[in-house]
């Protein structure tokens, strides 16, 4: 079992200032019994793929950087301030732009795609002689300074005398009571229940649901995984990619679609909107995920054609879209060359 100590920070719920939260441990285990990563049809362990350099760069390129949408006004219940206009020299402008780059990177930092965590089953001691001392459980939490919530000791003494480590739900609840994280509720909000999520998604509130899930759960929480997958699948089915395109959730969504072999809708969307760079990056991502190869074709058109002829699942629709795009492209080039000739 290989553990990578990656300092991964991700932004929290949009209501509150951005916090640093350390995802201390995610283990890449080849435990065949833990098939939850493979159950919904993932071809590979997502934790393995997500943190690779080339995958990260591809996802960042796909997300793009639409500053207007990333920094859009959010309704936080705070007092709105009018925009400030300042007269700056070029050097000062560059300085401000560099600061904005940093802020942009933080806002666009992608929440990781991990597989479900294993339930905690450790028992410290079994004292049947303590049965009857109380009807309720005693939950002990270590409130020492200097340990992260992930490593904090939370221990439960059951009425039957068993001293065990607290389950993930108990542990998260206790940590939230004694070390509250803003944006997180102690008990799971009703919004994440079955019928209620559907309600939110029908109203196109994708960013809200995903931001709140990010604030409420850890990325390897089964609830987080189910909520995010539901949202991603809904967005994919209804092809409402534009609302999520410039947000930090677009990257994980794309990776989810690629891993569960549902990327054809997205490719179709890119071809229709004539975003060839994005389409090419998507195909490159597919190859990286499928067998760790980077395709040798430099020409993007060739790359996409090979994909459509080869591994694509929705060939008819994609071929049609691709042909119509090529025709439009050809006509555009003809018109362009005519204009050039006329001007010359």
């Amino acid at each position, binding site marked *: 079992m290989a553990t990578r100590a990656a300092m991964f920070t991700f932004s929290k719920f949009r209501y509150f200032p951005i916090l640093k939260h350390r995802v201390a441990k995610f283990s890449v285990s080849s435990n065949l019994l833990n098939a939850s990563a493979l159950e919904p049809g993932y071809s590979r362990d997502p934790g393995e793929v997500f943190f690779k350099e080339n995958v990260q760069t591809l996802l960042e390129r796909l997300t793009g950087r639409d500053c207007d949408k990333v920094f859009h006004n959010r309704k936080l219940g705070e007092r709105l301030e009018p925009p400030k206009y300042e007269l700056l020299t070029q050097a000062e402008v560059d300085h401000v732009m560099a600061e904005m780059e940093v802020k942009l990177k933080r806002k666009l930092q992608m929440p990781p795609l991990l597989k479900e965590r294993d339930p905690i089953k450790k028992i410290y001691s079994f004292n049947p002689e*303590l049965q009857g001392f109380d009807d*309720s459980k*005693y939950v*002990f939490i270590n*409130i*020492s300074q200097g340990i992260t919530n992930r490593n904090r000791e939370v221990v439960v*003494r059951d009425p039957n005398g068993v001293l065990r480590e607290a389950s993930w739900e108990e542990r998260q609840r*206790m940590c939230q009571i004694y070390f509250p994280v803003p944006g997180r509720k102690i008990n799971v909000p009703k919004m994440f229940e079955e019928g209620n999520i559907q309600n939110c998604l029908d109203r196109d509130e994708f960013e809200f649901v995903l931001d709140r899930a990010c604030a409420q759960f850890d990325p390897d929480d089964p609830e987080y995984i189910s909520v995010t997958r539901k949202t991603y699948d809904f967005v994919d089915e209804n092809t409402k990619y534009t609302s999520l395109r410039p947000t930090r959730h677009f990257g994980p969504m794309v990776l989810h679609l690629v891993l569960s072999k549902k990327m054809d809708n997205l490719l179709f969307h890119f071809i229709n909107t004539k975003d060839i760079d994005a389409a090419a990056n998507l195909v490159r991502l597919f190859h990286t995920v499928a067998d760790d190869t980077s395709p040798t074709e430099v020409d993007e058109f060739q790359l996409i054609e090979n994909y459509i002829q080869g591994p694509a699942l929705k060939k008819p629709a994609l071929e049609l879209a691709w042909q119509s795009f090529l025709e439009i492209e050809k006509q555009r080039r003809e018109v362009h060359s005519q204009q050039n000739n006329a001007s010359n």
Partner: protein
Amino acid sequence: MASAIPTFTKIGKVIRLNKHGCTNRPFYHIVVQKTRDNFDGPVIEQVGSYDAMPNSQNEKLVAVNFERVQYWLAQGAGISNPVAQLLGLSGFLPNHPQTLIQSWKNRREPPRERKLQPIKGIAPPLDNPKI
């Protein structure tokens, strides 16, 4: 202090429960105090809390700063009976004999039910009298 479990001294520092909360709703702070000080007097350090009322999940929450408890024990602080019992339940100290005795007694004879008589015309009996 050569004893394995710190013994209660006449005057010195002690780790004990200070009752806060209000009527019918106790809430204890686990504090380090001088023995002679009152519960509402000067506290050297608060080292945890203990909520004696079970919550909706039937849990009694105990927060303990084990690192500081270790420090004060090393400095020769005593522990009171209830705190020693709690630490025993948490696994930090061995099980306290009082916990074992109480469990045994509870199993031998269930805790006596307090029967509350209704006051005629004014108040019905409580559904779930606290044992």
